[in-house]
């Protein structure tokens, strides 16, 4: 597609359930990023992929959060045993690669609500 695609666009789940969020980056973009935007907060970095490896996962808030990327393309962010504080908009972004000055292109996000 022409842009970064994220699914689902909205997800409502009960506390304690696991959720998977998906990101399809722009074709050919080797760098992929996950961010989280909580109510009243700015965007918070979670994890960065270059290809299939994650050189920076410093933003993952707890071991309940994990992410993987396969084939240098699609990425999945998994949250286990969800808590109410996990409610947020989860944004994915991609950029062309290791050239540092390339801007990041964002998807529409997944709005996650934990009941």
């Amino acid at each position: 597609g022409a842009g970064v695609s994220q699914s689902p666009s909205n997800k409502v789940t009960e506390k304690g359930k696991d959720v998977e969020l998906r990101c399809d980056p722009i074709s050919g973009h080797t760098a992929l990023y996950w961010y989280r935007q909580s109510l009243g907060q700015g965007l918070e970095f979670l994890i960065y992929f270059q290809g299939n490896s994650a050189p920076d996962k410093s933003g993952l808030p707890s071991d309940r959060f994990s992410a993987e990327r396969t084939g240098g393309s699609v990425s999945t962010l998994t949250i286990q045993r969800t808590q109410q504080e996990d409610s947020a908009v989860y944004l994915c972004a991609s950029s062309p690669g290791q050239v540092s000055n390339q801007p990041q292109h964002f998807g529409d996000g997944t709005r996650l609500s934990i009941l």
Partner: protein
Amino acid sequence: AQRVTQPEKLLSVFKGAPVELKCNYSYSGSPELFWYVQYSRQRLQLLLRHISRESIKGFTADLNKGETSFHLKKPFAQEEDSAMYYCALRGVTGGGNKLTFGTGTQLKVEL
């Protein structure tokens, strides 16, 4: 550590008035600064970045290393400028590729 501060949550101006959205940063190395904008019901998109030194939609921003600021300016606000604006920093030296964002400023341009 990297930090970006946008002191105003909401900025309301009249159409045709000048606009200045403030952004200050904290970073010990050489930063790269960006402004991103999110219009109503649209995705976050890049507005401009300091290395390009360009004007987009009439907006400009100058990196002031002495004041550690990257304020966004436009001489005459238009109604279509109403949106959420985020300042972001990427640490070029040792900061990796992640962006650190401010909390955003909601710009409202009134008629």
